[in-house]
């Protein structure tokens, strides 16, 4: 009995320490963004001046807008391509190139970014030499690179969602004479919609967070936000970067909170539906 109690206490302590390890650096970023001193880690009084400094930094604002544009475009395209790939892998058992497609849509998940970045840059240069396109590198090449690696994440999410889903619904619709395209849009897509939303958010985050691949495939005049941050923090800590981090963390925390509330609400509605169904059965 005593050893069971011992273990019960051991696990929550590990969990609390682990979570503290995950959150202390983030909290330190937030706290020192309100520090007056330029020395970042020497506290000298509360101030919001670094936020003002941040909003006057045109280079960071331009980079943030560019990153947002790339992230929105690549997330939308990645969801379309990734959904098709996931659907094909989950629902079409036999076709030529299945192993190839399965391997290729899984590989970007585990490929070191630095190899992906190098290979895409060398590809774009070789392609330009042969066809004249892409003419120079920048927003287009970064977007293509981001679509390619984030569609793999979407494909995996959609594939596992479809594997959980009962195919008899689709089969029933087909039996009733619906064409495959109609079945896909009327049955399959609504069921995987939650997976599409999480896939889009994941692709967006991966794109806006990427430094290594963008550094390879971007060109002059198209520095993304991580590229600007990296060149700045390489020289040492700087308080306006703390302010930027605090804003990003705030947006993410707000988004997660809203998602959790929406999830709760949906769960409650479903609970009500289930209760109503039970009443009807009685």
């Amino acid at each position: 009995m005593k050893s069971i109690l011992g273990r019960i206490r051991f696990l929550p302590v590990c969990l609390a320490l682990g979570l503290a390890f995950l959150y202390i650096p983030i909290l330190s970023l937030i706290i020192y963004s309100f520090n007056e001193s330029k020395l970042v880690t020497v506290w000298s009084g509360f101030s919001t001046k670094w936020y003002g400094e941040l909003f006057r930094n045109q280079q960071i604002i331009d980079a943030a807008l560019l990153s947002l544009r790339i992230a929105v475009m690549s997330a939308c395209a990645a969801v379309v391509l990734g959904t098709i790939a996931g659907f094909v892998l989950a629902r079409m058992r036999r076709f030529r190139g299945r192993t190839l497609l399965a391997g290729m849509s899984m590989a970007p998940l585990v490929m070191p970014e630095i190899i992906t970045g190098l290979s895409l840059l060398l590809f774009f240069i070789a392609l330009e030499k042969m066809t004249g396109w892409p003419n120079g590198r920048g927003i287009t090449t970064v977007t293509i690179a981001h679509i390619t690696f984030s569609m793999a994440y979407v494909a995996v999410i959609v594939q596992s969602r479809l594997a959980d889903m009962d195919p008899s619904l689709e089969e029933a619709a087909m039996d009733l004479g619906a064409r495959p395209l109609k079945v896909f849009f009327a049955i399959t897509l609504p069921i995987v919609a939650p997976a599409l939303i999480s896939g889009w958010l994941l692709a967006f985050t991966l794109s806006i967070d990427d430094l290594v691949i963008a550094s390879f495939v971007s060109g002059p005049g198209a520095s993304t936000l991580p590229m600007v941050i990296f060149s700045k923090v390489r020289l040492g800590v700087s308080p306006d970067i703390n302010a930027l981090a605090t804003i990003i963390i705030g947006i993410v925390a707000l988004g997660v909170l809203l998602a959790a509330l929406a999830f709760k609400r949906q769960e409650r509605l479903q609970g009500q539906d289930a209760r109503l169904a039970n009443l009807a059965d009685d």
Partner: protein
Amino acid sequence: MRMGYTPLGQGLVRLFEPVMPTALGNSVARLLRAAGVTGRNAVIAVPLLWLLLFFLIPFVIVLKISFAEYATAIPPYTDLIQWGDDALMSIKLNFGNYLYLVEDDLYVAAYLNSARIALVSTVMCLLIGYPMAYAIARSSPANRNILLMLVILPFWTSFLLRVYAWMGILKNNGIINNLLMGMGIIDEPIVMMQTDFAVYLGIIYSYLPFMILPLYANLEKLDVNLLEAAADLGCKPFKAFLLITLPLSLPGIIAGSMLVFIPAVGEFVIPSLLGGPDTLMIGRVLWDEFFNNRDWPVASAVAIAMLVFLVIPIMLFQHYQNRQGQS
């Protein structure tokens, strides 16, 4: 099954109603089918062609350039295929870049060092992450979602900025040294930045969620009845853990370990921000070779060698991933 019918899904269906097969659509479809283009093939072709073009062909190009020679030209490498006077095509493969990797101590040391840092970090992530994942899996369902969200949340914030946070904590006049000196425990700051220690810490910190999530997914499915049966038969909890929980969670352990090990080997950001000039990691060597020395053939050879090095971990990961997908 009602849950799938979200407003978004229904909206999308209505959006596509006008393009659903009509008389015109049917005749176009017949034409295409006659040409051998069925809807099925077209659907398969879209992702397949995209990945062939932007994933597979780029690798072939890296492989090709790794066998080329460095040249002062634009782009800075020679062509493999050469046409002789008699219009005979000859392919010249140059293994020099690979020999160079083996002969130069720098590269061998960088590979070994990357492997060591990635391995130690993976083991540390496992030791920290396993109890955390187990604690989350054993907590009440309501708490479980909140705890899981707390583990995932850092992943959604910028990776680069989380590594940057450690610079402020570890540097000589950073938070830890200020705290220790303020309490009078030490007189001189402990040098932590630009050391291997900082690199280990950065990697463990950044990749810990990748270890916890697959472990949690696995431990959540564990049948508690097995542990109860063992306890009923007089088995001590720790022994039951070693004999039942640990072996059953092996797929989760392997998936999590590969998700930490593989990217850690190629890591570039963490060693260049937290490590010192002598922290040799292969991702950083590749970066310098490409951007500073502009030696594309050697950089390509470094990339191919890294892939060969990672083939076994990648295949292990895919094997267990597929098995989990099937079960």
